[in-house]
């Protein structure tokens, strides 16, 4: 054990401070990921249907990584205070494993976020909204999820389609297969409703008279929360990992100077 030099004490203090920060960031990461997993905007069915829902996997990993970081930071502090080589060795090995998991979570969130384009959600909406295809149970489940989510989105947020109601005109869709064009140029949910959930004026809605239908697209309302979610997991994880790297290197250096 070094002779109680002030510089050694200072170094110890620094490392303990580093570990405290890691612990607190671990708790923050857990809280952030729980918030994302709880899906306040109920947009999960849209992601599930795109088969690109790894962002939720990344958030789940983030929850457990955060708790582990907190516990390991406590272990690290104990090891540094006691200057015990064995404890610190265990700390290093476990930290490395947690580091690898968090890296996987951060990279996954960043990569998946790049998939979020208007085109992705447009294709999903056109293929699945009100689709009656019965090919397998998975399809039926996804179609139902997409249809319910879009219905709720269009009614509550007063929007229509991904880019606008003309999505239903410009592109072929399952909705068009089920409903004729003259009666349903776009879904009824795009119409302004009265308090009984009936269109205020059906003819005006079908014609596209402003004030009787929703003319703006829903893309911003979908991509906003999802982008924040993805960037939150990715960049916060990245920041934690950079800091943890420095603290680990410092602790390894400290470890190598401990005398038997």
């Amino acid at each position, binding site marked *: 054990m070094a002779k109680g030099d002030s510089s050694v004490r200072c170094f110890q203090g620094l490392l303990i401070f580093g570990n405290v920060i890691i612990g607190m960031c671990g708790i923050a990461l857990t809280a952030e990921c729980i918030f994302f997993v709880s899906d306040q905007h109920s947009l999960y069915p849209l992601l599930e249907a795109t088969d690109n829902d790894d962002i939720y996997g990344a958030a789940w990993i983030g929850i457990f990584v955060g708790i582990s970081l907190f516990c390991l930071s406590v272990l690290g502090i104990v090891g540094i205070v006691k200057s015990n*080589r064995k404890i610190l*060795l265990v700390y*290093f*090995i476990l930290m*490395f494993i947690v*580091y*690898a998991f968090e*890296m996987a979570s*951060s*990279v996954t969130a*960043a*990569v998946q*976020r*790049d*998939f*979020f*384009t208007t*085109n*992705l959600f*447009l*294709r999903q909406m*056109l293929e699945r909204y009100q689709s009656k295809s019965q090919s397998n149970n998975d399809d039926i489940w996804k179609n139902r999820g997409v249809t319910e989510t879009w219905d709720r989105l269009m009614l509550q947020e007063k929007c229509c389609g991904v880019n*606008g*109601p*003309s999505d239903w*005109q*410009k*592109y*072929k*869709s399952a909705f*068009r297969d089920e409903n*004729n*064009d*003259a*009666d349903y*140029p*776009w879904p009824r949910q795009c119409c302004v409703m009265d308090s009984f959930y009936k269109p205020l004026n059906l*003819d*005006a809605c*079908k*014609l*596209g*008279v402003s004030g009787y*239908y929703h*003319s703006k697209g829903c893309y911003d309302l979908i991509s906003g929360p999802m982008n924040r979610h993805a*960037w939150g997991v*990715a*960049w916060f994880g*990245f920041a934690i*990992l*950079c800091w943890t*790297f420095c603290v*680990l*290197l410092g602790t*390894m250096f400290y*470890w*190598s100077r401990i005398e038997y």
Partner: protein
Amino acid sequence: DPSLSGSTPLEGSITSSTFTLDQPNGQFNSPDLSDTDDIWLVVAFSNAINNFTAPQSPQGIPHASTFLEKKYYMTIQASRALYSNETNAQDIRILRVGNETSCTVNTCNAPLPGPGPYRVKFLVMNDNGPVAETKWSEDITLIEPEEVSESRAPKSAGTIVIIVILSILLSLLFLALVALLVYTCFDICGTQEISRPEECVQVRRYNTHHTYSTPEAGRS
């Protein structure tokens, strides 16, 4: 002559099976026409407008059911009173061609069968035959829905930064950990090798009686 509803641009004025015209308000006030005359809308394919001859009697009126053979038909039967000039400013007065999806009579305003292009004109008839008509409109082409294209999403710069930097950090950490473990192992194994005796060395125990006995003697 008829024109698409251009005065108030509406998002739904042209769809893939309907289109919307402005009502010809005030265009039939001429004294040659009477209030009982029927005003019909003639819809024809653009390349068949020369084939159109006005029917000489109400029985010869072509209907939507024969549209594909004859290449024209007449619909939206109205009278001069409906196209009067008294407007209520808030009303939007249009004619939507293709509006009726379920009707049983001959004079149906059924949805159009394809993207066209189409041309329309108005024809005034009474029981004796045609009385007056307008000129043909411009070409009206309906929307043809297409397949939505697949597009690859490019990787953004942020993603590449994250991947590169994290890979570097992880590999450095891995090397440091390996170095640590090797160092530990080397230390422990090294000391063990040195301390493990190759052969048994006899250490003779010397009985140092005489050294102990002297203080005894000294004390007594």
